Structure formats: structure tokens, C-alpha cells
């Protein structure tokens, strides 16, 4: 693939050398590392009054990882979008800084070194994917076996003990992984392949349920609707058995978004919303865990009024409020009051408290930029599978950010999931680095200039022959 790109570049003696964006990427990556190191130093200055002893090592570790990834992209995916890597480096760096900062108030459990280890593994896998996966269309072939693996991954945690009320971890000794995170990618690949293959059937057949000529309001036939309902039932099953509201909401959201993008039928969204609402109501009725979370969302200060002190949501809101516009400063907040999940599910509250609304919006903008690049890559690609895959991955990141941040901001009920790249959690970091690798790989294809003489060599036939 890379060689052909090089040939393509060489084969254009007349035109200007196409812009690859690699130097922009290099500058941005270095800037991202610098910002993270600066944050690390600020934590040390604010808490101890001195620069942390290992600031240079920390910076070097992050820098080497980022530059390695950059080098591999330069080598093997030179036309790739220059933004995803620096954004991922920056978000991961911010995460490490904030986790390190929270470690300082919980001397008995330090999570930053482990997180750095997982980040290294994530970057390693990112590099491996870019090196080994020459063309994303290869994945289409393994979509169904991947889905099977995903289901196994989802089911396995049932046999492991519940942690904080949810059976979503596989624990082996001191290590624990959350297989649902990895399953996310496999499922998006499967959805993309399935929908690329069946989008016409899903879009065109069906009977009209609205007395109008509007195609968008037809109910698809059972043959096509069946698998969709099956997927829905599977997720509700996972939700009930593992009580992982966040993950099931996320999967379902990704599925509905991809279904809509593939078929352009609003009815899918309507059906999705109805099914989701029904699922949530049923589960909320069956599971006290979910029920209490809805209660806490509606009345975050009820426990205070009842004289039982602040619950986690109230503590989270206190943290955000304390940050105000400009934040207390890294290391100067009190988000440790949130309790056990401060480094994972609630890490967004620490960002809000110590970096303020300004820092929080900056982080949201980083996510927005990453997501929009994902959508752009999808739109720019020509093959339906690739398009759906890129859009699905971008939507997965977007929905996950919304579900997590919305939960801790009390915008929606708290569901418990990890903030991509930032929150403590190895599975999450690794998964998101693989998503970045896939986006980089696909963007390389989408942005590669066509070889002279061939009309869009890599493009598929038009979506529908007219």
C-alpha cells in the first residue's frame, strides 16, 4: 500500500507535490506532549511547590510513544489525516496528568504508572494495526467471526464476580480488563459489514405505516427487522445480566446511528428510541441498581436534604461548580471527595474542578474535532463498509463521551463508562488507540491522491446503479 502511494507520488512529475500533512502532525504531536508535560509540572508545583522529579522521564516516555506512532504513520500511511494522532496524544496525556494528580491525594493506590503502561500497550497496538492492516476492507471478511468473538467477550464477565454492582470485568489476579470495550470495535466492524451488505433491503422494503407517500415512515418487514430486534434483545440481556447500563446504551446508540446512516430512514431512529425507552423502563423496573441511578439523576441533592450527606452525583456537581469558569488549578481542587471512582468514571469532574469550564470545553472541543475527523473520513471514503466503519467508530467515541460526561454532569442518568483516553482503565485506553489506528488507516486511503490516468482507483462502484 505504502509503496503504491510512493509510486503514485513519484508518478506526478507535473503537478505540485501533494500535501501529506505529516509535518503539521509532527508539530501538533510535539505540542501535545509539551502541554501534557506542562500539566505534569503544574501538578507538582501546585502540590509540592517543586517540579516533579520524574517530569523529564514522563515527558520522554510520552514523547517517544507519540513520535514512534508518528514515524510509523509517516512511513506507512503518509496521506493520513494529521489530526487524530495529536488529539489522541493530548487526551491521553491529559488523562495521565489528572490520574497522577488524583494519585497524590490517594497515597494508598497509585494508578498513573499502570495507566502509562496501558497507554504504551495502546500505542503499540495502534502501531501494529497501522503496520499490519494494509486496507481496512480486509476487516469486512472477518466481520461475522469478529461478532462471535464480541459476543463471547460480552458473556464471559458473567462468570466473574461483580464489581460495584456490575459484572463487566474479567479479573485475573491484580489485573482486570473490561472486555466490553474491545467488543465495541468488533461490533462496529460487524454492523458496518452487515449494513453495507443489507442496506438496500433495510431501506427499500416494508409496508407503509403512515398514510403518506413518505418513504421514511414505512415499517420494515420482519425478515429484515428480525436481526435488529435480535441485537436489541441481546443488549437488553447484557444490560440485565451485567447491569452495565452505559455499555448497552452505547452499543444501542451506535447501532441506531449506523442503521440510520446506512438506510436514511427516520423510522429506524423512531423504532430505536421506542425500543430503547421500553428497555430502559423494563430494566429500571427490574433492577434496583438502575432504578436508584435514575432517582439520583432526577434528585441529585435528595440525599443531602435527607441528611445523609452528598451522594456521588452531588459530589460530582460540587466539583464542577467549584471549578467555575477558570478552575481551581491542577492539584488544587478537592475532587477526591467524590470517592472511589474519581479516577475512572468521574475523572471529568476533576477536569471541571481544576481546569474549569474553559478547560472542560477545550477537552470537549478535542473530542469534537476527533469525532468530526472520523465523520469526514467516512464521508470521504468511497466504499460503503469503510464509510460506515469510520462513521460508526466516530459515533462510538461521541456517544461514549456523551454518556459518561452527561452522567457525571447529571444531564442524563449516571451509567458508568470510561471517558475515552482520559479515564483510568486499560481496556478503554487500548480500545481507543485501536480506533485511532483504524481512522488513521482509513484516512490514508481517503486522502490519497488518485494515480494519474485512473479515475479514483480505490473507489467502489457508485452506491446505487441508476
Amino acid at each position: 500500500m505504502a509503496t503504491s502511494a510512493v509510486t503514485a507520488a513519484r508518478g506526478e512529475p507535473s503537478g505540485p507535490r501533494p500535501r501529506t500533512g505529516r509535518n503539521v502532525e509532527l508539530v501538533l504531536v510535539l505540542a501535545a506532549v509539551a502541554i501534557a508535560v506542562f500539566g505534569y509540572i503544574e501538578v507538582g508545583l501546585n502540590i509540592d511547590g517543586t517540579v516533579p522529579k520524574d517530569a523529564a522521564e514522563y515527558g520522554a516516555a510520552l514523547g517517544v510513544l507519540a513520535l514512534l506512532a508518528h514515524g510509523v504513520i509517516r512511513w506507512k500511511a503518509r496521506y493520513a489525516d494529521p489530526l487524530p494522532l495529536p488529539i489522541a496524544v493530548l487526551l491521553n496525556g491529559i488523562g495521565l496528568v489528572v490520574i497522577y494528580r488524583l494519585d497524590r491525594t490517594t497515597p494508598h493506590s497509585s494508578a498513573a504508572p499502570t495507566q502509562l503502561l496501558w497507554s504504551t500497550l495502546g500505542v503499540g497496538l495502534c502501531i501494529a494495526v497501522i503496520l499490519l492492516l494494509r486496507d481496512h476492507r480486509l476487516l469486512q471478511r472477518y466481520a461475522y467471526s469478529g461478532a462471535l468473538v464480541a459476543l463471547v467477550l460480552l458473556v464471559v464477565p458473567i462468570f466473574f464476580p461483580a464489581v460495584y454492582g456490575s459484572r463487566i470485568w474479567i479479573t485475573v489476579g491484580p489485573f482486570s480488563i473490561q472486555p466490553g470495550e474491545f467488543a465495541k470495535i468488533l461490533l462496529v466492524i460487524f454492523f458496518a459489514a452487515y449494513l453495507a451488505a443489507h442496506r438496500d433491503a433495510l431501506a427499500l422494503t416494508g409496508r407503509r405505516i403512515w398514510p403518506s407517500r413518505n418513504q421514511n415512515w414505512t415499517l420494515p418487514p420482519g425478515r429484515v427487522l428480525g436481526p435488529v430486534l435480535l441485537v436489541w434483545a441481546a443488549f437488553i440481556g447484557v444490560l440485565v445480566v451485567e447491569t452495565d447500563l452505559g455499555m448497552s446504551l452505547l452499543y444501542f446508540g451506535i447501532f441506531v446511528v449506523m442503521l440510520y446512516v446506512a438506510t436514511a430512514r427516520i423510522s429506524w431512529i423512531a423504532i430505536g428510541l421506542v425500543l430503547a425507552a421500553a428497555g430502559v423502563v423494563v430494566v429500571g423496573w427490574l433492577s434496583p441498581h438502575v432504578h436508584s441511578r435514575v432517582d439520583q439523576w432526577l434528585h441529585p441533592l435528595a440525599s443531602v436534604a435527607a441528611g445523609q450527606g452528598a451522594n456521588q452525583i452531588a459530589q460530582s456537581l460540587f466539583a464542577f461548580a467549584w471549578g467555575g469558569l477558570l478552575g481551581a488549578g491542577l492539584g488544587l481542587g478537592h475532587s477526591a471527595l467524590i470517592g472511589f471512582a474519581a479516577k475512572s468514571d468521574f475523572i471529568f469532574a476533576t477536569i471541571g474542578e481544576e481546569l474549569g469550564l474553559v478547560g472542560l470545553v477545550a477537552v470537549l472541543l478535542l473530542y469534537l474535532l476527533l469525532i468530526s475527523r472520523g465523520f469526514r473520513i467516512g464521508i470521504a471514503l468511497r466504499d460503503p463498509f469503510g464509510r460506515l466503519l469510520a462513521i460508526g467508530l466516530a459515533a462510538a467515541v461521541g456517544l461514549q463521551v456523551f454518556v459518561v460526561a452527561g452522567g457525571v454532569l447529571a444531564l442524563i442518568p449516571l451509567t458508568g463508562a470510561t471517558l475515552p483516553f482520559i479515564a483510568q482503565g486499560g481496556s478503554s485506553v487500548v480500545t481507543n488507540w485501536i480506533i485511532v489506528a483504524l481512522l488513521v488507516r482509513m484516512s490514508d486511503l481517503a486522502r490519497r491522491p488518485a494515480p494519474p490516468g485512473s479515475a479514483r482507483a480505490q473507489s467502489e462502484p457508485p452506491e446505487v446503479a441508476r
Partner: protein
Amino acid sequence: MARRSRGRGDGPQGLPGISITGRRAGLFCLVLILLLAAQATRIQVFQAKGYDHNPANQRLTIERYSQPRGNILVGDTPITGSAPTGGRFNYKRTYTAGQQYAAVTGYSSQIYGNTQLEGTEDGILSGTDSRLDGWAVWNAIARKQNPGGDVYTTINAAAQQAAMQGLGNQKGAVAAIEPSTGRILALASTPSYDPGTFAGTSSADQSAWTKLQADSDQPMLNRALRQTYPPGSTFKVVTAAAALANGVVTDINAPTSTPYPYVLPGTTTTLVNDTSSCDQPNIDLDTAMTLSCNSVMGNLGVQTGLDKMTAMAENFGFNDPKLDIPVRAARSNFDTQMNQSQVALSSIGQFDTAATPLVMAMVAAGVANNGTVMYPQLVDKLAKSDGDTVQLMKPRTYKQAMSPAVAGQVQQLMTDVVQNGTGRNARIPGATVGGKTGTAQHGVDNSGTPYAWFISWAKPAGSSDVPPVAVAVVIADSNATDVTGGQLAAPIAKSVMQAVLGSTG
């Protein structure tokens, strides 16, 4: 929409293609992120204040104790301090002489809050008062907490020491005032307590608090400020001032038309005297004060009348529910609705009349200051941690109680009490002392141990200046066999006045 899109989109059968639906989905994600930003703005900007001040939110408390608290000073010496705790609340309050100054400082406890000066001046001490800001805008941006400021009291260390030593292990209180300014020189209450014992959050702090709360001697009650007692005969100073100011008596040595025995108006009850020397008609005011004759003073009160008696009492701080020094004193009472016999009893400090030691000190101070009652003040100066003055005490007139001429007559009466009468125990060599004793009956059928009172002022002999000190002493429930103001309270007043005279001279 379908009609419009049909044949135009590149999706199935002319439906919008992925280029369009993908864009819409992207827009949806954008909306989600915007919703997050909007919610964050709502919480961090518009609702922040409410959350910050929620009682379950520990942040304000943590911030408050993240730095040493400013100090309360007597003279230039801090009587408080701060000690690192090593806990979540970094610093806790310490007191250099907690027992001695508890009635002045109050307490600052991480669990039980702040009282008295620690409470009223909390903004300065904790650094939250906006007057401590260097540049408010910069402080808001940098979120820099101001270091705690200092509160300089008006207390005279020697007078406070004398008061506490004099009270000893009796139950009682002392309030001393500088008459010309209203500065409070001593404020003592016994039994006392050490506010440092429950300043922190440990279980030792909590049990110290519980023990103090359960103590039947009420060591945490500030008797000088927050407790009222029937003032007994010390109130005769107010009655005398009212009678003189309103022309009921013009010459203190002229006989008053008081019959003996004096029957309370509208009753058949005789107002009895403690000493037989009073048991004769037409005693003059000077003799009546010197011997503390109830019959004469009761009669003069009735002659003066309820309204004028009330007005004079209120000139000294009676019936003022908001007497803040800046710590609020309890309301001293002189009834405004009474029949004549009740007026007679009230005029000798009985019936429903009740006063804090502070207000009785104001009575002595008002007389000493030629009739001008000054607002009593406990705070001399508020300063930033670097010493810059935030606020300086300015003497304020509370009421003009009487003319200087009348005040001079009352001063003469009080001087005679100490020279020749019941207040001899307060005599100080080389000083002019004026005073009035009081022994107030109370309880059912006056069965309680009487309250021993003494109010007085003193100045160097021959000085024409305003006396530098006025003092009120009350001893409640003493174990002494001879409970009279002259026996128990006068010596304490004397030592307090000596302390002030010694330190000023």
C-alpha cells in the same frame, strides 16, 4: 422531504446517501457535545454558588482551614494561634490562654463553628472578608485566598488578669469599660473553659465539647455579656440619676420627703431596709445612697415616674435587644408597663429588672464620663496579615444620659459610697473611687444565694479627667457566708481598677 430527496440523493432509490446521512449523524454528535458544554456552563457558571454553599459540600470548609487563621490580639500579643493538624482540615485554632480570654474570643471549632469575636470577625480572621482583597478582580481570577487578618481587641491584659484572678473559682463575671471611649478593658466570666480543647475534629475534641455541654456550671456561658441578673442596689445609681436629671431632687444633701416606714403605693407592704440607719423619714439622697436605703430610693423612683425611669434606664443600654460590641449582648430589662409599687421595687433593682454586667458597667461609665454613655466596643482595630489597617475603632456616643452637672452630682454620691458607705472595700490609696454595692435577692421567696454586685469607676486622686476605668462585677452563687456586694464584689472591682490605673499611670 422524501419527495425532494427522491432522485437527488445517492442512497438507495434516491434516498439521501451516506454523504448526507453521515453529515446528519455528525451533526447529531455535535449537538450532543454542545449539550454537554451547555450543561457544564449551567453548573459551573449559573448554579455554582448554590452548590458551593451546599451544607454537604466540604470545599468551603477545606479552603477555610487550608491556611492559618488570623489572630485575635490583646495589645500587641496574640492570644490565639494556629496549629497544623495533618488532616483534611490543614490548620486548627489554638489559644495561648484559653480560659482567661474565652469570654472575649469565643471559640473557633472545626465541628461546632465560631462564636463571639471568632464568629463576628470570622470574615477577617478566615480571610474571606472582601476588605482584605488587594485587587478584587485579580483575586477572583487567580482564586487566591487572602491570608487571614488580625483582630486587635480593646482588652487591657492586666485588667483581664485581675478580673479572672479576682473571680477565681466563684461563679461570676466582670465587665470593665474605659468611660470616655467605650473601649472594653476586661470581659471575664467564670467558670471558664479552654476553647482550644475542641478546635479540631478528633474524638478528643468531641468528648471535650460534650463534657463542657453537660457541665451544670455552664462554663461556656458568657456571664459578662449573655447572662442577665437582677442588679439590686447597683441600680440605685440609675434611680438617683433619673431623680436628679428630672428635678425630683435638686440638692443631694437636702432632706427628701420620704416617710418612714415607706409603704409601697397601692399596697400595705412596707419596703424594708437592710440597715436600721435607714429607718427614719426624710433622709437625704447622699445618705440614702451611702447607706443603700431602699425606702428612699424606691420612693424617689416613684416620684420620678415610670416613663422617666424607663428613659434613664434605656440611656444606659436597658431594653436594647441589639447591643452589639460587635458580639451581641443579652437584652437587659427594665419593664415599661408597671404599677407604682412595681416601679418602686424596680427602682432598687428588684422586680423584673435584670441587667448584664456589661450594661451595669455602662451605667458606671456613663456617670464617670460626665453623663455621656459611649457605645461599648471590644474591637480596636482590624488589620491585614501584613499589618495594614482595615478598620480602626472610632468612639461612638450611645446616649447622652444626663447633663454633666447631674453627672457630677451622681459622681459625688458614688464617691461617698466608697468613702463612707457600703463600698469601702473598693477604696484605693491615691485614687478617687466612686462605686455602688448591690446584693440582689432572687429565687422563690428570695431563697437563692444573693447576687453580689459592685459597680464603680476610679481615677487618680486630684485628676479632673474622665476616670480611665469603670467596672461592673457580679458574683453569682458564691459559697461565702456573708454574701454582699461590698464583701465579695468590691475587692474584685478594686483590683481591676488598680490594674488599669497602674498601667495607665
